[in-house]
C-alpha cells in the first residue's frame, strides 16, 4: 500500500524530528518549527525577512505558516543566540514600516550542523521508511 506508507512516512518524519531534536542537549535544543525556520533562513541567505521566510516554508514543506508563528519562532531563536536581526529602511508599500532582516549566527550554524548529524544517524537503517516491510 504505497499511499499508506507515504502517510506513515510523513508522520514518522514529524515525530522523529520533534523527538530527536527535543532530546538533544540544551545547547542544541531546537523545536520542530525552530529547525524549519532555521533551514529556511539558511536557504534564503541575505535579505531574509518575515514574508520570504514564510513563503519558503510553504514552498518546501507544503504548509502555510502564520507570520505571527514565524516571528515568535524567530524571537525564540534570537533568545538562544542562534539568529540575529537588523532593521531595514521603511517602505511605502509596507505603510512606512521597516523590514526586519534575519540571519543565522555562527552558533546557529553549529547547532544546525549538530542537528543534521544527529538526525542523519537516526534516519540510517530505518527499513520501514525505505518502502520495505518492517
Amino acid at each position, binding site marked *: 500500500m504505497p499511499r499508506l506508507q507515504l502517510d506513515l512516512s510523513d508522520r514518522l518524519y514529524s515525530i522523529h524530528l520533534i523527538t530527536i531534536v527535543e532530546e538533544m542537549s540544551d545547547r542544541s535544543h531546537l523545536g520542530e518549527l525552530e529547525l524549519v525556520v532555521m533551514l529556511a533562513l539558511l536557504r534564503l541567505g541575505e535579505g531574509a*525577512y*518575515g*514574508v520570504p521566510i*514564510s513563503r519558503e516554508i510553504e514552498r518546501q514543506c507544503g504548509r502555510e505558516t*502564520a*507570520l*505571527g*508563528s514565524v*516571528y*515568535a519562532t*524567530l*524571537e525564540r531563536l*534570537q*533568545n538562544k*543566540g542562534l539568529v*540575529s*536581526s*537588523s*532593521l*531595514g*529602511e*521603511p*517602505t511605502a*508599500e*509596507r*505603510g512606512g*514600516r*521597516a*523590514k*526586519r532582516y534575519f540571519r543565522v549566527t555562527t552558533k546557529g550554524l553549529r547547532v544546525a550542523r549538530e542537528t543534521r548529524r544527529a538526525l542523519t544517524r537516526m534516519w540510517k537503517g530505518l527499513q520501514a521508511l525505505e518502502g520495505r516491510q518492517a
Partner: protein
Amino acid sequence: MKSNPPLLATWLLEHFIRGEDSEALAGDLLEEFGQGRSISWYRYQVLVAILLTLSKKLRARWICFLFAVVVSSAVSFRRQIWQSFEFEGLFTWGIQLPWPASLAFTVALWSASEGMIFFVAFAVYLITIRRFNRRNFSKGALVALVPLSLGNLALPWIWVWHPPMVIFYTVIWRLPLFSSLILATWAVPPATPQRQSATRPA
C-alpha cells in the same frame, strides 16, 4: 493596493502586539495584503499573532499567580498576628469608637496588617526576580493599594451577611491580599531573557 486592510484587525494588531517585532509584522502583513491576500487571511494572521502574544505573556507570568496563592494561603502566620494579645486589644479599642470611626479604624487596621505582609512578600518577590529597586517597589505598591483597601473595606459588609465561616476564612478573607499581590506582580513581571536588539540602518 486593492483596498485598505480591515481597520479593527489593524487596530488590534497595533495595540495588542508591542515590541520590536510588531512593526516588522505589521509591515509584512500590509505587504502581503497589497500583493493580493484576502481580508480573511489578514484577519486570521492578526488573530494568530494576538493569541501567540497572549499565550507568551501568560506563560511568562504563571509564577505571579503561584506566588499570590502561596502568600495569601499563609493563614497560620496571619492568624498568629490577629490573635496576638496586642492586636486584639487594639482591635477591641477601635471597634468601641463611634461609627463611622470604628469602621474606618477597623479597615485601616486590617489594611495595615495585610499591607505589612504585602510589603514583605512583594520585596521578597522583587529580590527573587532580581528587579528590586525603588521604582518597581513603588509601582507595585501603588497598584496594590486599590484592591487592598477596597477589599478590606468590603470585608465588614460581607461579614454582616453572616457567610459560612469556612468560606469566609478560606476564601473571602484572603481575596484582598491575593488580588493585590496578583496586580503588583503583574505590574512588575519577571524579566524575560534578553535578546539582541535589531540594528538600525546607518
